[in-house]
């Protein structure tokens, strides 16, 4: 486990993002807080529309104009949430960078990959054309692209999806950023390539000490690479803790639901898991601050006490917190089922 250091790399505190649309406001992110230590991998997990990507965009100051963020984002103690676009540009790509889900469209089709990686270096580090190219080759080596020396002059359409995602990673880590935001980096790739990409990210964190925020809905990825996990639901943090604790001992019914919806061959063979559990319903769109638990309409444990207020995150075990009126492991539900 990562040792707590005196100052976290990235600290997000009470982050809110509100969208003002023609149909009224939408509360996309509601009081998300987390801290990321050097070399740590934090996973943001949740269904589509739960505010994961918006959290990342808010960190980078790249929300659309209709969005109003509040709360603070501190990069090594320095509050970057109120910076101007000019100041943020100096941070983006150099201190915080990001990789996207779609490797097929994340590279500009009209430039060679070497040019695109080199551009970031030329901009932020003031390298010349030749130096940037040499660095680009090193970076392609780092992300394990074979024969980087010739590949550097290829165009994106000459590469496969996995290869392009590696180029994206090379581009993102070109300036050795302190924090890497990875928005579903493996979702569009097939499973063997996924494993390679995760390997590369693990190496990066070890060799460069990069802290990674991994945004994903894939719990397999979380278990594979993350140290800590933040489970998000409707813009709120539902549960947070170390991956070991949350996976071994989930407390929030939503986390339980997510874990239950993953196929587990071992459990199927042991006749424990007959069919995949689903969570009925969809993530609600919040228009007003909730007066009840946001998960209550879909929750098997919901009762009157859940409808009085939105529960706050409370510690359920050392290093693990859940926002639930009735936290507890899955057994609680089984007993419930017996009683009914």
């Amino acid at each position, binding site marked *: 486990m990562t040792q707590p250091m005196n100052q976290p790399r990235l600290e997000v505190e009470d982050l809110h993002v509100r969208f003002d649309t023609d149909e009224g406001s939408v509360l996309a992110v509601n009081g998300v807080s987390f801290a990321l230590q050097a070399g740590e991998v934090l996973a943001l997990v949740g269904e589509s529309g739960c505010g994961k990507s918006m959290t990342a965009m808010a960190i980078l100051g790249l929300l659309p104009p209709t969005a109003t963020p509040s709360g603070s984002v501190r990069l090594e103690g320095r509050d970057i949430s109120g910076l101007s676009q000019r100041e943020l*540009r100096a941070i*983006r790509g150099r201190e915080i960078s990001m990789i996207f*889900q779609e490797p097929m469209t994340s*590279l500009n089709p009209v430039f060679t990959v070497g040019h695109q990686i080199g551009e970031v270096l030329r901009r932020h580090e003031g390298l010349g054309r030749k130096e940037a190219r040499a660095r680009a080759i090193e970076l392609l080596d780092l992300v394990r692209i074979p024969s980087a020396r010739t590949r550097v002059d290829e165009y994106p359409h000459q590469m496969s999806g996995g290869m392009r995602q590696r180029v994206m990673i090379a581009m993102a880590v070109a300036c050795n950023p302190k924090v890497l935001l990875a928005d579903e980096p493996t979702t569009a790739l097939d499973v063997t390539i996924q494993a390679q990409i995760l390997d590369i990210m693990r190496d990066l964190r070890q060799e460069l000490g990069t802290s990674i925020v991994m945004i994903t809905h894939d719990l397999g990825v979380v278990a594979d690479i993350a140290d800590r996990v933040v489970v998000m639901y409707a813009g709120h943090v539902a549960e947070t803790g170390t991956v070991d604790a949350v996976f071994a001992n989930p407390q929030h019914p939503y986390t339980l639901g997510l874990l239950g919806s993953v196929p587990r061959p071992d459990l199927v063979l042991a006749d424990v898991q007959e069919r995949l559990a689903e969570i009925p319903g969809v993530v609600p769109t919040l228009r007003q601050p909730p007066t009840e638990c946001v998960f209550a309409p879909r929750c098997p444990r919901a009762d009157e006490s859940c409808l009085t207020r939105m529960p706050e995150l409370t510690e359920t075990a050392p290093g693990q917190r859940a926002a639930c009126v009735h936290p507890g492991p899955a057994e609680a539900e089984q007993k419930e089922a017996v009683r009914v």
Partner: protein
Amino acid sequence: MTSISATATVAPARRGSRLRRRFARRPTAVIGLFGVCVVVVVALLAPWLAPYAPDASDYNAILQPPGSPGHLLGTDDIGRDLLSRLVVGTRASLTAGVLATMLAVVVAVPLGMIAGYYRGWIDPIVSRVTDVVLSFPFLILAVGLAAILGPSLINAAIALAVSQVPMFVRIARGEVLSLRETEYVQAAVVNGAPTRVILFRHMLPNILNPLIVQATVAIPAAIIGAAVLSFLGLGVQPPTPAWGTMLSDAQQYVSQAPWFATFPGLAIALTTLSFNLFGDGLRDVLDVRMRS
């Protein structure tokens, strides 16, 4: 002449050879390219190609028919050699066409791109002004502007350019509007690229294809426009020859000397056709959706 078409290929570097092959497979496109090359070469070499000075009149040989001794295409009402005037007139017509289109591109593309990228208050302003300009028929607007600016080749080109700006603004704006949502543009933003770099280094090369194709449509339109303006006396001034002025001069002699009007008309028609065929071919070759 075949060597001309081979040397003047317009395909961009690197993927050039692939595009050249695709282009060569379209006979109409090759014909168009050939025609464009001929016009350009004639315009460039006009003083050397023309057998006579374009304004040298020979009063002993007025309205000679084509094939008369010394005058391949005949002569006009004051005995000027029609071939020479046609050849030298290529310069004015092509200049007006190309200059007008270039001016339009230089003004319209940044404007459209900025409107499409920033949206906000600037987009409705640019779009509505574009709509207003577009609501005037192309030639009426050009004629009106040329009349205000006064007759000259440059003013004719400016008037034609203004009339062409809206189409280029629309294309640039629309393309940027869709590009700004693509992930590689997002990636450039995330990597800290300033807006200027995003617009002109990341986006511009990606919207070149539709712009090039629009240009090959705009150039012949401007050539016709220039002909109309000089026909109306708003373009190139005599004695400088231009295809439009030649047509205008020939107007009164259509029954006596039909060839007088035929050849400049033919030149306009063939040049327009060449640019159109070439543009169609370019569009097919460059269109991403048609790439395998």
